[in-house]
C-alpha cells in the first residue's frame, strides 16, 4: 500500500511539473514537492473499525486526485497516525504532524471527543482541520480552523425527532445513552429538547457508562415504561450487546432507533437478526440514490471488494473537499486553505451536497437507514436543504427539517 501510493505520488509529481509553472509559491513553508496532509485516526483500539474505514476512504480519494494530476500540479501525500482511540494520543499525534511533519492541513478524527482534543491543537497552531465524522456541536466551536464535513448532533437530533414523531408517529420515546461519552449524551440531550417541541415525550431514560456490558436491568426498566420506540444513540459495539440482551428481554428489533454511531458491519454481523427493522440516522448508505454516491460505491468496491461504510464515505468526502479547497485557495498558506474550506458551497460528495456554514459545520442531507435482512438499506432523507433547492446559496441557519417521502419500492 505504501509503495503503491508512493509510486502514485512520483507519477503525479512528474505530470504536475510539466503542466504548471512550478512550485514557486509565496509561502516559504510550502516548498515541499507535495501537499503534506496529516490524518490522525483511531486505527486501533475500541473505535478501530471507524478509523480503518475512514482511512480506506481517504486513500481512495487521494489516489483519485493524484491520478488526475494532483492539486495545483503537486500530489497529495497523506501521513497517517494512529491515536489508539485515545484523546491524549490524538493531541500528541496532531502536534507531531504539525511540528515534525509540517502538514498544511489535517484530516481527523472520527469521534467527537478526540476531534475536539486534536482540534484545539490544530486551531492554536493555525492549521486547518477537517473532521470527517465528529458530530458533537462543540467540536467546531474550538476555533476558526476546525471544520467538519458531517452534520452536527443538533441537526441529527432534530432530524431524528422529526422522523420518529412526524413520520413514524412514535411519540413515547425511551432514551438509553452513555453518560460519559460526548457524542452519546449530546444526541440524547438534543432529542430530549426536540421531542418536546414536536409533541413527543421521553417516557424513560437510562444513562450508563461506556464500559458497561450488562444491560438487562436497563432494558427491562425501559420496557416497563411502555415506550413506542427506544432511542439508543451509541456506538456499534455496545449496540450489539444491547440488541442481543434486548431480544432476551423481549424487545423487538424495530423498537430501536439510533444515530450514525451504529454504522459498522460488525453490528449487522453480530446482531443483525436482533435489530431487524431498526432505524438510524446517518450520512450515507450504500444504496442511497445520489449520483456521486453510486459512483463512489463502484470505485470503492473495485478496490476493497466490499460495500463502503458510512465512515469510508465520510473519509472520502473529507479528503476530496480538502483537495478541492487547496485547489481553490489563493495561495499555499494554511490561512488561504482555511478560507477556501470556509467558502465551500454545494460541493458534491458521496454523502450528498455539502455547503460549509458560518459555524464551519456542513449543511447537508440527513438520511434514515433501516436494518433489513442484515443489511443497511436507505429508507428516506429527513433533512435536506441544500439538495432540495439545487443551487446551494443557502446562508440562513434556521433549520426547517423537512420530511421527504420514502422512495417508491420501500
Amino acid at each position: 500500500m505504501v509503495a503503491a501510493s508512493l509510486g502514485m505520488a512520483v507519477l503525479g509529481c512528474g505530470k504536475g511539473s510539466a503542466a504548471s509553472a512550478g512550485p514557486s509559491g509565496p509561502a516559504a513553508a510550502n516548498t515541499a514537492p507535495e501537499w503534506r496532509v496529516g490524518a490522525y485516526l483511531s486505527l486501533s483500539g475500541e473505535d478501530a473499525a471507524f478509523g480503518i474505514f475512514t482511512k480506506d476512504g481517504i486513500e481512495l480519494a487521494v489516489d483519485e486526485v493524484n491520478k488526475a494530476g494532483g492539486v495545483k500540479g503537486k500530489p497529495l501525500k497523506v501521513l497517517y497516525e494512529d491515536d489508539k482511540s485515545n484523546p491524549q494520543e490524538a493531541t500528541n499525534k496532531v502536534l507531531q504532524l504539525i511540528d515534525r511533519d509540517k502538514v498544511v492541513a489535517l484530516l481527523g478524527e472520527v469521534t467527537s471527543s478526540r476531534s475536539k482534543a486534536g482540534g484545539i491543537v490544530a486551531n492554536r497552531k493555525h492549521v486547518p482541520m477537517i473532521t470527517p465524522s465528529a458530530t458533537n456541536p462543540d467540536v467546531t466551536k474550538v476555533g476558526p480552523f476546525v471544520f467538519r464535513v458531517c452534520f452536527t448532533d443538533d441537526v441529527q437530533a432534530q432530524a431524528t425527532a422529526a422522523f420518529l414523531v412526524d413520520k413514524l408517529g412514535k411519540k413515547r420515546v425511551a432514551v438509553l445513552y452513555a453518560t460519559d461519552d460526548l457524542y452519546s449524551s449530546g444526541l440524547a440531550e438534543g432529542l430530549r429538547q426536540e421531542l418536546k417541541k414536536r409533541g413527543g415525550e421521553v417516557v424513560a431514560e437510562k444513562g450508563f457508562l461506556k464500559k458497561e456490558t450488562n444491560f438487562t436491568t436497563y432494558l427491562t426498566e425501559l420496557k416497563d415504561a411502555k415506550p413506542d420506540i427506544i432511542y439508543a444513540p451509541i456506538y456499534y459495539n455496545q449496540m450489539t450487546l444491547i440488541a442481543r440482551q434486548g431480544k432476551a428481554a423481549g424487545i423487538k428489533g424495530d423498537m430501536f432507533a439510533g444515530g450514525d454511531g451504529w454504522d459498522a458491519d460488525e453490528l449487522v454481523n453480530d446482531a443483525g437478526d436482533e435489530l431487524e427493522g431498526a432505524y438510524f440516522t446517518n450520512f450515507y448508505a450504500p444504496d442511497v440514490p445520489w449520483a456521486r454516491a453510486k459512483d463512489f460505491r463502484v470505485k470503492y468496491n473495485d478496490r476493497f471488494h466490499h460495500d463502503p461504510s458510512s465512515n469510508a464515505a465520510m473519509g472520502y468526502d473529507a479528503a476530496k473537499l480538502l483537495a478541492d479547497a487547496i485547489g481553490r485557495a489563493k495561495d499555499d498558506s494554511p490561512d488561504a486553505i482555511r478560507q477556501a474550506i470556509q467558502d465551500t458551497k454545494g460541493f458534491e460528495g458521496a454523502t450528498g451536497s455539502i455547503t460549509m456554514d458560518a459555524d464551519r459545520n456542513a449543511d447537508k442531507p440527513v438520511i434514515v437507514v433501516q436494518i433489513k435482512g442484515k443489511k443497511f438499506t436507505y429508507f428516506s432523507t429527513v433533512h435536506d436543504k441544500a439538495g432540495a433547492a439545487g443551487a446551494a446559496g443557502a446562508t440562513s441557519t434556521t433549520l426547517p427539517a423537512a420530511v421527504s417521502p420514502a422512495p417508491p419500492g420501500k
Partner: protein
Amino acid sequence: MLLFWKVWGALETGLAQGAMIALVALGYTMVYGILKLINFAHSEVFMMGAYAGLFLIGALGGETAPIVAGIAGTFGAMLLAGALGVVVERIAYAPLRARGGKSANARITPLVTALGMSVLLQNLAQLLFTAQYRGYPRLIPIQHTRQIIFVTAVLVMLALQFLVHRTWTGKAMRALSMNMEAARLMGVRTSRIIALTFITGSMLAAVGAVLYCLDQSQVYPTMGVTIGTRAFVAAVIGGIGSIPGAMLGGVLIGIIGELTKLTPYSGLQDVLVFTVLIGVLLVKPTGLLGKAGIEKV
C-alpha cells in the same frame, strides 16, 4: 409490588454478574495470599482465556453442536489460560523471586513487572488478533445464561473449596500462604505449588471469561481492564488473600452495580462501588473477611 419484581430481577442479574466477577477475583486473591503479589496480568489472562474460548468454540462447530462445543471449548480455554498463567509466572515473577531476596524493593519490583506483563499481553493480543471486537457464537439463549453462570460459578467455587481444604495440594497452598520458608522446610515444593496456584487462578478466570462473553461481552484486547478492576476491588473488599472473601466481594459488587441501575443515578455506578470500598476499608482495613496477619520483617 412492581418495585419488588424490579428489585428481584436486578438481584438475580446482580448475583450472576457478581458470581462471574468472583471467579476472576479468586485469581487475584489466591496469588496474593501466597506471594503477596498483586498479579495485574490476571485481567489479561482473563482476556486471553476469552480469545481461546472464542477460537475453540468456533473450531468445534459452535452453532451446530452448541453444548459439546461450549463445554469442550471452555475446558480448552481453561487449559490454555492455565498454561499462560504459569508461563507468566515462570518468565516474569519466578526469576525476580529468586534474585530479589530480602532487598528493600522485593515487593515493588514484582508489582511493576506485573503491570508490565499486563501491558505486554494486551499489546500482544492486539498484534495477534487485531483490535476488532468479536462476538461469541450464540450457544445458549441469553435468557438462560444468567442461571448457567450462577450454577457454573457455584460449582467451580465448591470445587475450589474442596481443592483448598480437602487435598494435599490445598494444604500446601495454605501452608505457603502462612509462611513460605517454613513450608519449604517441611518439604513442600514451593515452586510447584506456586505454579499450581497460578494455574488454578487462571483456569477460574478462563471459566469467567467464557461465561462473560456468552452472556454479555464481545472479545477485544482491552476487555480485561473493566472486569479486572471490578474483580480486584471485589478481592480487596472481601479481604485480599481470603477465598470466601473474594466470593463475597464479587457478589456484593455485582448486586450493588445492578441496584444502582434501577435508580436515576445509573451513570454513577462506579462512584458507589468505590465508595463502598473506601467505607469497608475504613471500618475494617483488612476487608470483610480478611485476617490481620503479623508482618514478617
